[in-house]
């Protein structure tokens, strides 16, 4: 369709303008459980429908841009970087980001060390910092292979790691959440903090890629 839609909308031909039907498949057990729990919470006056909606809206508003802001600050302010590596929860709070009730551990990529994050048991992810995790992060394939053959997984993400760099995999199995502090790309000395933040993308903060220069 996209290749044939450069003709404006003066169609000389017939095609069906009826919107396609919704393709909501049959519900899974978890969808029924979620709906049942939500309806009970509302019925018993524990939460209102609007409170649930507002919380979803808050969660959807969290994006990797918040993490990128933290990374750019750490790149430009060595004292902030030190605080971030010592206590990620407190240092992100300085920028108005609330990680709790979970705790944030920030791990730094250097010339000698590359870090990547996985949760083999489920899909623990720093949602309060980066938003919802990507689908691949939750896949059984990533969760199994990131600990078993992490270098092969990195290659599939286009990240070639030489053997003189130690790879540290972090299995996020309990109460900590992890963010990778990527290396600042070369030739970015002239960039402002907000220009640097624009270079930082989600997957680099999970550690499956590196940040490229402009």
């Amino acid at each position, binding site marked *: 369709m996209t290749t044939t839609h450069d003709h404006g909308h003066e169609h000389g031909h017939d095609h069906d303008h009826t919107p396609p039907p919704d393709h909501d498949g049959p519900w899974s057990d978890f969808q029924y459980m979620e709906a049942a729990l939500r309806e009970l919470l509302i019925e018993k006056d524990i939460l209102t429908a609007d409170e649930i909606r507002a919380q979803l809206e808050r969660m959807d508003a969290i994006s990797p841009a918040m993490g990128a802001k933290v990374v750019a600050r750490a790149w430009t302010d060595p004292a902030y970087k030190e605080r971030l590596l010592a206590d990620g929860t407190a240092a992100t709070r300085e920028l108005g980001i609330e990680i709790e009730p979970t705790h944030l551990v920030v791990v730094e990529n250097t010339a000698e060390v590359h870090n990547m994050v996985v949760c083999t048991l489920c899909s623990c992810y720093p949602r309060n910092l980066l938003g919802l995790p990507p689908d691949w992060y939750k896949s059984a394939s990533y969760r199994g292979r990131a600990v078993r053959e992490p*270098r092969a997984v990195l290659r599939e993400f286009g990240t070639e790691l030489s053997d*003189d760099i*130690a*790879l540290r995999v972090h299995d996020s*199995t*309990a109460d900590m959440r992890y963010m990778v502090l990527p290396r600042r790309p070369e030739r970015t000395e002239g960039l402002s903090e907000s220009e640097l933040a624009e270079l930082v993308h989600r997957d680099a903060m999970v550690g499956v890629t590196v940040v490229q220069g402009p």
Partner: protein
Amino acid sequence: MTAKYQPGERVRVRTDRPSGHCRTPHYCRGHVGEVERICGDFRNPETLAYALDGLPKQPLYRVRFSQADLWPDYDGPKTDTLDIEIYEHWLEPPA
């Protein structure tokens, strides 16, 4: 609770196979690693999962393993490592 192990100390993950919920992956059970840091005291997920209070809190550690120790056929450099969070009751001194 006072943490029993200190950063840098070698620890072994117990080889128990309890039924029910736990957050100690099978792949690290029985392996020896080194305490990377103490994360603090946290409620025990093994009872929390069943709507109990998770008390007493357990010290939680990050334990670093050598990948070559975890996987006999690991094909990366010897310097590659894996860090996992383990609750104290899953740890014992290395034999």
